[in-house]
C-alpha cells in the first residue's frame, strides 16, 4: 500500500515537473518574443533599413561618410542581445603584426579608458567591436547608446586606428587622442 502511494506521488510529481518545464519554456519564449519586438521597434525608430539573418538576428548596413559598417544585432540565448561589427579580419591585422605592434595592449587600454569601447577577437583571430545588453535591461535609450557606440567604434577604428596599426605605431596617446576627438 505504502509502495503504491509513493508510486502515485512520483507520478503526480513527474507530471507537475514536466508542466513547470513547459511553463518555463513558454515564459522564456514570451520574453524573447517581446525582446525581438522591442528591437524591431527601436530599429524602426532609428530609421534603419535591416535584413534578417539566420542565427536569430538582423543586419544593418550603416553608411557613414565614405564607409560601410555592417552591424549585426543578434540574440545570444538565453538572455543576451549582442550588437557587433567586424573591425578587421585576421588577414588585415595578422597576429604577427598584432604582436610586433602591441595591437592587443592598445585595444585593451582603449577599452579601459572609454566606456563605449569593448573589443573582442573570435577563434579565427578576427577583431570586432561588441556590446551586450541583458534582455531584462533592453530599453530604447540603452539600445541606442550601445548601437551607436559600436558604429562609432568602427568608424574611428577604420578611419583612424587601422592605418596606424598597419604602420606599427605604438604610441598609445596617439590612439587615445584619435578616439577622444570623436567621442564626446
Amino acid at each position, binding site marked *: 500500500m505504502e509502495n503504491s502511494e509513493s508510486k502515485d506521488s512520483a507520478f503526480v510529481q513527474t507530471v507537475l515537473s514536466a508542466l513547470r518545464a513547459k511553463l518555463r519554456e513558454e515564459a522564456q519564449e514570451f520574453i524573447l518574443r517581446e525582446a525581438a519586438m522591442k528591437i524591431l521597434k527601436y530599429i524602426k525608430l532609428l530609421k534603419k533599413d535591416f535584413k534578417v539573418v539566420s542565427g536569430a538576428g538582423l543586419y544593418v548596413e550603416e553608411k557613414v561618410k565614405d564607409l560601410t559598417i555592417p552591424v549585426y544585432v543578434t540574440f*545570444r540565448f538565453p538572455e*543576451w542581445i*549582442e550588437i557587433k561589427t567586424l573591425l578587421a579580419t585576421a588577414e588585415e591585422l595578422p*597576429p604577427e603584426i*598584432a*604582436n610586433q605592434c602591441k595591437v*592587443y*595592449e592598445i*585595444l*585593451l*587600454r582603449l*577599452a*579601459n*579608458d*572609454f*566606456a*563605449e569601447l*569593448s*573589443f*573582442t*577577437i*573570435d*577563434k579565427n583571430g578576427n*577583431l*570586432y567591436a*561588441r556590446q*551586450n545588453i*541583458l534582455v*531584462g*535591461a533592453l*530599453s530604447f*535609450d*540603452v539600445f541606442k*547608446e*550601445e548601437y551607436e557606440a559600436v558604429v562609432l567604434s568602427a568608424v574611428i577604428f577604420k578611419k583612424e586606428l587601422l592605418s596606424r596599426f598597419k604602420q606599427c605605431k605604438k604610441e*598609445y596617446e596617439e590612439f587615445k587622442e584619435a578616439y577622444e576627438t570623436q567621442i564626446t
Partner: protein
Amino acid sequence: MSRISGFESFFIDKLIGYLSLMNKSFEVTPEGILVHETINGKETLVTIYITEKWIRIHANLGSLSDVPEDKRREFLEKLLNANWNYPEISFGIDSEGNIYSIQDEFVYALYYDVFEEEYNAVLASIEIFNEIKKAILKPEEAKVQEKKKTQKG
C-alpha cells in the same frame, strides 16, 4: 574617463541600496564605492564609480608585468578571446599596466537586476582571468621548476 561630482548622490544612494540587498560588505569613499569580496579564499576589492554617462564596476586583477614578455601577446589575445566567448566579460589595461575586469552600466539602465548581473560578471571574470593566467604561465612555471631540479641534480 573623468569622474563627476554633483548628481552623484542619486546614483550612490541606489548603489548603496543594491549592495545592501546583495549583502555586500562595502565602504563609500571619495574614490568610489569599495566592495570587499573573498574569492577562493583571496580578498578582492571591487570598485564602483560614476562617470558622466556610465557606472563603472571594476576589479584590479594584477599587472601585465607579472606575465613574461614573450607570453604577453598570447595572454592579451586570450583576454580578448574571453570577451568573445562570454557575454559581458570585458578586460582593460590602464596606463600603469594594471589589468581590470570592467563592466560599464549606462546610467539609464541602473536598476537592480542589471546591476546585479553586471556586478556578478565582474566576479565571474576574475575566475576566467585566473584560468587564462594559469594556462599561460603553466608551461613557464614548469620550465622554472625543471631548471631548479636540474640545478639541484
